[in-house]
């Protein structure tokens, strides 16, 4: 499908490792709109919206920030921890948006399983419905994420 110059620039940005190591696409060969559509379908099967996800993730992150790097009890089932690094992450989409390099790790106390997301992930999900390509370091599987946070 012919892409406008804006879309081509976006795809190049998502593949480049200029913003994050190994880019946002991992080894996914699909185009960005395909990835987004497929993930949105999975999400609707789990009966959640991107707004709900982003809200819950932000709430967990805010609770965990107060721990200053230690594990914080979120509720009876979960604990979370926030690690931060110096600098900002830029959203690959062409709009002003800089995000702290803040990674939230969420642990289910019963099983010990963890999932992690960055502030940029929350923005990509909320504003662009983008969960990153398969194989990317910070790819979030929508159904897995729902199971972890709700």
């Amino acid at each position, binding site marked *: 499908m012919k892409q406008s110059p804006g879309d081509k620039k976006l795809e190049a940005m998502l593949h480049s490792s200029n913003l994050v190591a*190994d880019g946002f696409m991992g080894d996914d060969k699909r185009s960005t709109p395909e990835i987004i559509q497929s993930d949105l379908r999975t999400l609707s099967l789990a009966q959640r919206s991107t707004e709900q996800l982003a809200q819950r993730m932000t709430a967990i992150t805010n609770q965990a920030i107060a721990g200053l*790097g230690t594990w914080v009890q979120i509720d009876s089932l979960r604990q979370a921890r926030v690690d931060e*690094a110096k600098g900002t992450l830029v959203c690959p989409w062409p709009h002003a948006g800089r995000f702290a390099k803040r990674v939230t790790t969420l642990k289910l106390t019963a099983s010990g399983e963890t999932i992690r997301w960055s502030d940029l992930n929350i923005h990509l999900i909320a504003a662009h419905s983008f969960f990153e390509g398969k194989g990317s370091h910070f790819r979030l599987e929508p159904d897995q994420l729902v199971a972890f946070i709700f």
Partner: protein
Amino acid sequence: MITDVLIPVLLISLIGAFLAGILVIAKAVLANYGPCEIAINDEKRVTVQGGDDLLSSLRTEKIFIPSACGGRGTCGLCKLKVLEGAGDLLPTEEPYLDDDERSTQVRLSCQVKVRKALKIEIPTELFAIQECLCRCVEIVDLTHDIKQFRLELQEPATLDYLPGQYIQLLTPAYKKSSEEVYRAYSISSDPAEKNIIELIIRLVPEGICTTYCFDYLKVSDEVHINGPYGDFRLSQTDRPIVFIAGGSGMAPIKCMLHHLHNTNSTRKAVYYFGANQVSELFLLDTMRQFESTLPDFRFVPVVATPEADADWQGELGLVTQAVQRDLKDAADCEAYLCGSPGMIDAAAKVLKELGVHEDSIFFDKFA
């Protein structure tokens, strides 16, 4: 028969070549903007070859405008005022400029093309920024995920900086990153060692630069940095100091402590260093040294959840809790904080509750 094929082929080739020739000439004439003069802050004048964007053109003249996206027009950090010669505002710039900026002729320098003489205005601090070639002379493991890197300046041989400032380290293209990328790290070295730049770096999971530094950078490798940047620095007063920083946030604090020692300062100082576990504490010897060489300095490590076998006798809990318990006469103090926005906000809140004035709290936020 053959000629029936040859003639049209020759004809098309000739016509194609002729048209291509015309286009080459046209391009040389139309795309050649010739030398263009850029007047900076009404004092400095540089001449660059026209046709490139302003950001790259300034860089060739050794004027480094900050940028996080390598000139693609997505980070908005390269803003500066272009008073004359920039042409109309481009659609790629619009999302990054608010009304105030548009009315004062702020533009994204990576999107503005240099076609004729320009008049621009940039903050004067940017003139002090230099590009330096260094050689890595020592790498020390401080904890399981923090290393100390000592870089010896080759060219130029020294770099003037204020304690508290940071440099940008160039990560070359390597396995994890196909492009060159710059990342910021605070300088932790002793300013008296004029030819050394020391950095304290913590490994960030999937980080471009930290992975390079930890897994690929070796002693005697060349390293490119530029700087110094930042306005986090000690005040000129005599007021007592409260330092709060954990992990790699110690870097600018260490540099400031060296400076206090070098200038024979008599300022009272206390440093609250927060860590999750005892194994995450580092450079304790250096801090103990400062306690003996500085007239009135206390180092207070605070561990949140010490390991069972560590036998920790020092302060327990979050660093903010320790400050609350321990700090006396807060109203006189100046606070210098370095760390994540979360830590800084929490610490600032506690300090204000203890009576420290808002204007006396200085910070180097990670983001």
